[in-house]
């Protein structure tokens, strides 16, 4: 959770407004399907479950997103190649670069 807070503060400093935060797969999934957002930051591992379904949902809605993960980028499924991956721990500048990449791709 504290990591989440840190990312929130990064985003704030970068000039973004954090619309919602989800800590479970279900919560995140419903929000991904319904909320109006410009972008999303996804941790790959949500309490033991993989967040790929959320990625799919976001992709379907053409919402740009990036992964934050402490796993290596190599371990992502091939369908999600091209999504920017931030390796934890990362700094604010790296977050900014990744967001720009994600938004430019869409």
């Amino acid at each position, binding site marked *: 959770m*504290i*990591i989440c*807070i*840190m990312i929130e*503060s990064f985003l704030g400093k970068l000039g973004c407004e954090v619309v919602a935060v989800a800590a479970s797969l279900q919560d995140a999934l419903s929000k991904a399907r319904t909320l109006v957002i410009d972008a999303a930051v996804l941790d790959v*591992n949500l309490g033991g479950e993989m967040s790929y379904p959320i990625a799919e949902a976001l992709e379907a809605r053409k919402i740009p997103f990036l992964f934050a993960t*402490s*796993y*290596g980028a190599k*371990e992502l499924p091939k369908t999600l190649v091209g999504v920017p991956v931030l*390796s*934890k*721990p*990362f*700094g604010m500048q*790296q977050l900014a670069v990744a967001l720009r990449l994600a938004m430019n791709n869409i």
Partner: protein
Amino acid sequence: MLLLLADLDSRAAKFFPVAAIGLAALALVLSGLLSGIHLRELKMASTSTNDTRAAELATETLLSTLQDAETGQRGYLLTGDLTYLEPYDAALRRFTTDFARLKAMPAFGRDWTNRVEEIGRLAADKLDELGQTVVLRQSGQAEGALALVRTNRGEHSMDAIRVEVNALESGMEASLAQIQSRTLSPARWIEVIGLGALACALLGWVALFHHHARLRVAAHLVRLKIAEQEREQSNDLLRTIVETAPGRIYAKDRNGRMLLANPSAIDLIGKPWPDIKGRTYLEFLDNSIQAEAITLNDRRLMETGRPEEFEESIGELGGEARVWFSTKAPLRDGKGSVIGLVGVSVEITDRKRMELRLRVMLNELNHRVKNTLTTVQAIAAQTLCGADNEAYLAYERRLIALASAHDVLTCESWEGADFYDVVVGQLGPYAGPVGDRFKLSGPEVRLNSRAALALAMGLHELATNALKYGAFSNSVGQVSIRWSVTSDDVSMLRMTWRERYGPVVSPPSRRGFGTHLIERILASDLGGVVHLRFDDPEGVICHIEAPLAAVVASARSLTLPQVNAA
């Protein structure tokens, strides 16, 4: 005859040649004896022949002497010339010796002596008649002499003598003929026996030779039998090993057709031997992808002609591929050309599963460590919120550098990391791809985990400084990193970090934590010496030197080549 010999057993076969040679020897002895006798007989015959010739001569001489006397008498009677009496007297004188000689001759036949006596008597009578006529003539009674001659008394005597002499001569001839016939028949016998002896000896020789040849053949056969038994024994041993060995043992020909598979291998394949024999993997293995991969690899191995060790997937259990450690070698014929392939495979599925689990665990661990590091970052962010942002950022960067080093090490299961990978891992985020703003040059060096982490942190500091004040702070600055391994008495790893085209260097007024970290902590962790130089106006230079033994990883664990199927 020789066939007969072949059927006889050893002892009988030996008897025959010995008997034959014995017989030959006996025959030779006999013929020798006979020859001896024959020689003696020949000698005797020779003597007899000489005697006969002498006797013949004696009779002839006697007759001629008598005739000489007669001729002398006739002459005298006719002419009254005394000169004719000379041969007559000479003959008379000779007669005695001649007759004596005849009498001395050995007898030739039964009547010999009688006839000789008769000749003597008749001759005496004839000589008497001749004497009377000569006396008559000498005393002037020529007529009386002639009348006496006309009585034919002398004539009759001479004729009778001739008859006796003829008889004698026939007797001699008969005797000669007898001798000759006697000497001829033994000679014929000797010839026959001699030839017979020769024939026996030859047969005996042949039989003995044949017998010896058979003995040699028999001995050779025995040797062959023993060799064959030994070969069978060793074959049995090999067969037992192949059958009972724990691994899968198999062989195939150049075209991939199965030549041999031990029970374990047949068991793995899961089909009976008749279905496997002479078939290729593609024909009897269920997983065609696996079969193809193995077939291709086997073909390659037979081409290169060298034995190899590797891991491969054959078969399945519970949805998982079974993994095998295989040793395969080309099969060669007597001339050395490759005729197939032979292999031994041991299952390592469990070991592989274990390896995989370890790998997964290691990744999990790394993941957790990085999560922890991120948590630490977040705590720092909160704690320092509002306080010195610069300090926080420097801290954050160092944390990220540490996490990055962790990544590199996790990739290698914490057994070590390549020098190259560590450098790129640290500089990449600052300077992009290699060659762009930094250049690397050095041999392959495998660092142990401690050295890898220390180096990573040290490089991070150097890069940060380059970013803030040095070569990475403008758009043209370059960093060159060169390292080498020198071997004086102690092998040393030497590295030089050199910055160029950055802003002009000025020594820092204060040696911050970064410099401290580089010079002292890094040196200590590497067990060597670190020297940061600001004296070259072109750019910062950093020399790092450490004993190779202290920084290098121990021998890499054996990772075998994989034959990938699925």
